[in-house]
């Protein structure tokens, strides 16, 4: 499988990337690690005419603390998330989830920014970012702005990023409390059939993988917990407001069942940590 032809631009800074996006408009796509985009291009489900390669923007990679916020650069690769000492201490859900993405070779290349900007409802990291209440910092021609993760995922592979904007970093409020990620797959390196990311403690957040056209929060579960429900009772609401699709792996009903079961397991594990 060979991608359709395209022109190639390699940039050396976020500002150059924005310039290239302005020049080429929505015909252009950003290339980070390429592990979401290149497979789609090989299937010709994506046929950008210009690729803007941001793969060498090392200043957008890495994890650091900024007061009570953890700042994760968009070009940080899954392997770096998985092995980050800062994240292990201040946001352990994220390295665990990163370690569940694909396989070791994929995790050497794929980036958190690429995964979030791709907005695939079947990806693991967007659900974690929703559960953690991250702010996404994007850079465009008129400078930087912040978008709450809650407002970022708009439709199937559609996000709040404008065609001339670049995701530069994630700002994650420090999480003190329990966490869990429950991923149901048929085979080790597969996409989740359904997965649930949960945090409890100073924040209660539940993110759902593959339960609709976008990564989702289980809002009914979070509200029930806030109102004092038992965790198991709250988890029964996990499929409320979701619209999972059926495919050869699972029916709609099975996905709804998985969402409830995995949410219960996630909440119980999170509160036990």
């Amino acid at each position, binding site marked *: *499988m*060979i*991608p*359709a*032809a*395209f*022109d*190639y*631009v*390699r*940039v*050396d800074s976020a500002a*150059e990337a924005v*310039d*290239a996006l302005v020049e*080429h408009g929505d015909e252009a796509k950003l*290339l980070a690690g*390429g*592990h979401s985009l*290149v*497979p789609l*291009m*090989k299937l010709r489900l994506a046929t950008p005419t*210009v*690729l803007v*390669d941001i*793969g060498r923007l090392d200043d957008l990679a890495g994890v650091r603390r900024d007061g009570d916020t953890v700042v994760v650069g968009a070009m940080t690769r899954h392997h770096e998330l998985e092995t980050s000492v800062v994240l292990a201490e201040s946001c352990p859900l994220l390295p665990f989830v990163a370690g569940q993405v*694909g*396989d*070791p*070779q*994929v995790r*050497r*290349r794929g980036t958190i920014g690429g995964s979030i900007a791709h907005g695939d409802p079947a990806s693991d990291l967007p659900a974690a970012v929703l559960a953690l209440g991250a702010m996404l910092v994007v850079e465009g021609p008129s400078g930087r702005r912040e978008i709450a993760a809650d407002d970022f995922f708009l439709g199937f592979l559609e996000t709040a990023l404008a065609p001339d904007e670049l995701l530069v970093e994630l700002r994650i409020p420090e999480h003190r409390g329990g966490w869990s990620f429950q991923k149901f797959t048929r085979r*080790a*390196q597969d996409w989740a059939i359904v997965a649930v990311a949960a945090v409890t403690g100073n924040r209660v957040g539940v993110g759902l993988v593959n339960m609709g056209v976008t990564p989702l929060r289980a809002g009914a579960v979070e509200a029930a917990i806030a109102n004092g429900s038992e965790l198991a009772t709250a988890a029964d609401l996990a499929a409320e407001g979701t619209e999972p699709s059926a495919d050869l792996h699972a029916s709609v009903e099975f996905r709804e069942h998985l969402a409830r079961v995995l949410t219960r397991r996630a909440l119980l594990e999170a509160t036990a940590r």
Partner: protein
Amino acid sequence: MAGAQSAVEVTVTVNGVEERRTVEPRRLLVHLIREDLSLTGTHVGCDTSNCGACTVLLDDRAVKSCTILAVQADGASITTVEGLASPDGELSPVQEGFRQEHGLQCGFCTPGMLMASTGLLATNPRPTDIEIRHALEGNLCRCTGYQMIVASVLWAAEHGGATVAGEALT
């Protein structure tokens, strides 16, 4: 920043030899390796980044060359299965392990298995059985049932670990 280009010069060091080619940006790294450089030990299996037959070392770390554009590898050092053995032809410990423990039958997945195993031992010289299984999650074998492959990697860990062209890899 240069303007958008429809042909790009790519320089890579493959198994210690610097190679320069002008390629279309859509050229996949695996095709650069197999077709432009005639190194056909690296296989194309699923072509969808599932099976791992195309695994090579990119700057000493295992990656899937069917999901990387050749232009992304510009300036990088690449090791393919042809580069594992010593210059005198002595097999690397990982290769020898697969021989000693019968880690292959048809051999199609073997180049990728060897490269992923070498990548594992470079960063984890003494992996447990379960760590090996997780490290090889991205490599599919339809012959051996994996048992013999895990035994091969354990053998390699005990007999010199990760080496490339006779040099230890860390």
